[in-house]
């Protein structure tokens, strides 16, 4: 006969058992995924493992674009720069060879009207810049820092613009030490990396930014000629959070009329007018974090851009703000910030109308986290860490990302930027 006391004991034992098993069961997974449908997150190695992968230390993905045929192209930074593709038809990444003499491809891939891919190269932006403690003479600290940055680039001849022709070269298999089949179109500015690229709607004029001098340049694919338009920012500021980087815009975007937008001096939104061939300041300021009690003259810059099908431009800033911009109405809307950490590293507009964003600094303790923004009704959703779990085959937590693009089917592709990186996929 079961007494009430026995029943109570059994019930309590079951409850305690459940509580214990629950707490222990998950105690090992100390970074919990937020995305409930984990099957929607996956990753690809950058090549066939152990055979022709892009070598570790050269895998940080710092450029991604979706070509019109649906192929995703990526560029890496590290000891050497590589070009790669992800072809959804074969569901694999294949690298297309390295680009000798260059260690970075930062936000600098575009496709022209004929389907050719243009690559802007530079120095690996993550490379440590040797900072000196004592300047020359009685240099102020900002002058010393600028000289250190310039010195870092003084031994680098300069980033080149290259043309890669997929029709000619995509079928050629490359081993890790083989070069990419590119045509060298020249160098826009000596001792400078190409820091960002975009292309006009006609697909025949490429626009670029350089680092560290911050020049805006134009390359005509028909004339095969560079034009240096001059500095986008007349001041040298170091707004951070990276202490060894000059604050310069890290992205460019063309509106549907062909104007090329970025940020400039004082964080003002500026555009290059292809008709007047001049950089024009607007009255709009990209959103940043400022401490008005303090003395300061530094400011944020644009980090990444994406455009929705209606022509609305979304931008992220180095202070971590998301903004939208209507280039027809010339209206900028500060949407806000998703987390305390600075930097909105990259973003993309999904086929579902949501804006997907990766926010966070280059931090070992507070890594990048993934979010979405729905314009209607205007709300953020936290998607957390990107974790690809296909145990026991592979499992990896993405912590650093620097580029993003939307595939033709709506898949969001994200470029991890670590010593050993992967192409992440998120299927909304």
């Amino acid at each position: 006969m079961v007494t009430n006391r026995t029943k109570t004991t059994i019930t309590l034992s079951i409850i305690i058992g459940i509580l214990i098993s629950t707490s222990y069961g998950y105690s090992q997974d100390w970074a919990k995924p937020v995305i409930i449908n984990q099957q929607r997150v996956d990753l690809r190695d950058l090549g066939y493992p152990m055979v022709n992968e892009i070598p570790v230390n050269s895998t940080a993905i710092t450029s991604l674009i979706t070509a019109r045929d649906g192929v995703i192209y990526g560029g890496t930074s590290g000891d050497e720069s590589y070009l790669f593709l992800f072809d959804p038809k074969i569901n694999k990444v294949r690298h297309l060879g390295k680009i000798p003499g260059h260690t970075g491809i930062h936000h600098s891939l575009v496709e022209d009207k004929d389907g050719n891919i243009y690559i802007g190269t530079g120095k690996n932006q993550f490379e440590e810049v040797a900072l000196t403690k004592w300047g020359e003479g009685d240099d102020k600290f900002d002058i010393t820092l600028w000289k250190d940055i310039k010195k870092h680039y003084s031994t680098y001849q300069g980033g080149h613009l290259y043309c890669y022709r997929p029709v000619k070269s995509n079928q050629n298999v490359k081993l890790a030490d083989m070069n990419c089949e590119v045509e060298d179109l020249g160098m826009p500015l000596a001792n400078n990396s190409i820091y960002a690229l975009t292309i006009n709607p006609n697909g025949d004029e490429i626009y670029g930014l350089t680092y560290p001098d911050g020049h805006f340049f134009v390359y005509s694919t028909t004339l095969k000629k560079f034009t240096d338009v001059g500095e986008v920012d007349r001041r040298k500021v170091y707004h951070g959070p990276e202490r060894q980087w000059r604050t310069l815009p890290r992205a460019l975007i063309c509106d549907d009329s062909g104007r090329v937008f970025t940020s400039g001096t004082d964080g003002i939104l500026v555009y290059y007018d292809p008709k007047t061939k001049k950089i024009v300041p607007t009255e709009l300021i990209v959103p940043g974090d400022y401490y008005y009690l303090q003395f300061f003259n530094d400011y944020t810059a644009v980090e990444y851009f994406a455009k929705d099908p209606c022509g609305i431009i979304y931008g992220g800033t180095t202070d971590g703000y998301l903004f939208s911009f209507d280039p027809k109405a010339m209206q900028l809307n500060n949407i806000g910030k998703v987390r305390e950490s600075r930097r909105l590293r990259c973003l993309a507009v999904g086929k579902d109308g949501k804006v997907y964003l990766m926010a966070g600094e280059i931090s070992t303790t507070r890594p990048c986290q993934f979010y979405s923004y729905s314009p209607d009704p205007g709300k953020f959703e936290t998607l957390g860490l990107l974790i690809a779990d296909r145990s026991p085959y592979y499992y990896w937590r993405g912590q650093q990302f620097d580029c993003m693009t939307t595939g033709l089917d709506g898949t969001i592709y994200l470029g991890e930027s670590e010593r050993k990186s992967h192409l992440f996929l998120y299927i909304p």
Partner: protein
Amino acid sequence: MKEICPGKNIFRMKSLTVFVLLFLFFSIQNVLAQENKICIVETREYPGRDPVMWDGLYAASDGKVYSALINEGESAHFYVYDPKADKNILLCDMADFLGERGKGIRSTGKIHNKPVEDNDGNIYFCSMNNGSGPNNFDYTSWKGGHWMKYDPKANKMEDMGLVDQGIGCYPLAIDKNRNFLYGIGFTGYFYRFDLKSRVTKNFGRVSNWDICRDIFCDDEGNVFMSFPTAQVIKYDVRKERIYDTPLLTPYDPSIFPTQLRNPMIDRTNIWRAVEWDPIDKVAYGVTCGSGSILFRLDPHDGPDGKVTQLVKMCDSKFLEGDPKAIPYSTLAFAVDSRNKKVYFAPSARGFSIQSYEETYGSREGHHLIMYDIKSDKRVDLGIMQTADGRKIFGCEAASVAADGTVYICGQAEVKDRKAATRMIGDTPTALQLIIYKPE
């Protein structure tokens, strides 16, 4: 024509049966004898009441033994045992030393590395929090792990600076010739600390989410780490870069993973503990999952080095039973390079398909396993127990002194319930320094 002689065949069959039965009887007796054999150890209590520890035990060249014990949510404590005084002494309350008490901030509740020693006898370790909370305190309030130095001659503890903001290190290794400390942080990044310039450098991510708990530095200054699945990666000191190697440590994917509710690539897919043998210039390590397989890694054999599988170091009861149930390895692993022996105190716990289980808290008898390098033989030294009959339970750190004494840190039965930090069934236990003196 064959001679038919049924009686002779029956006699032969009977003899065979008797032989088989005798063989089985003696085999079982042998196994039981091994399982019941007692390994007499001594224990020394710690003055604090820290309930757990992992890996933080080091027998220094001067004979002193350093222990790093953990009181999560409060402070880690650093102790020294002097064999001459035969006593454990508290050297440092980490939260107090680092100025974290009384500030409403997260504290240094953990030290999770085996301290290392330089050529001058200075002791180094790295502090951390890494989940030790208090988890209801603002995460960002913890400053980060510190590179710590203890000078035994001057009896001076020194904070050499932060590893990284909000990051402390799990494993630690030293390059005694170049004066570098190496560690892997909580989020998987590999750090080098220059003892001379006191500068920390991050060389990038080297670990999956379940951080590699032990690394080693070879005689050339290269540092070796384990990466899932069973891969060996190497920090090349000349190139100052980390590369994948083609080396694989022994791996048996058929062993139960850490947990079955959500099995994933975790610590069971890498090595658990590893130690450099400076005399033979090879490393010995034990896999975490895969049945606690001992291996030797010779970085000088061939262009990339060579890994050789040796023996299973799991508790003897698992050798005969279901190999699936072998629990993942503890960190109670130590190499006696002078006497050519490897010691390991494996977990004795079973495996629950419903929940995650730890070594600590298991009420089973815990054996000390020895591998004799010269004869290539595994020896079960027996169930650890004190001369007065007190039992030893889960152990998570070990180190061998210059005289061959084996020091282990683990849960020991205590007679006074007030001295207990944990009850295992009805048995009061506390972490104690366990001393095994080989014959």
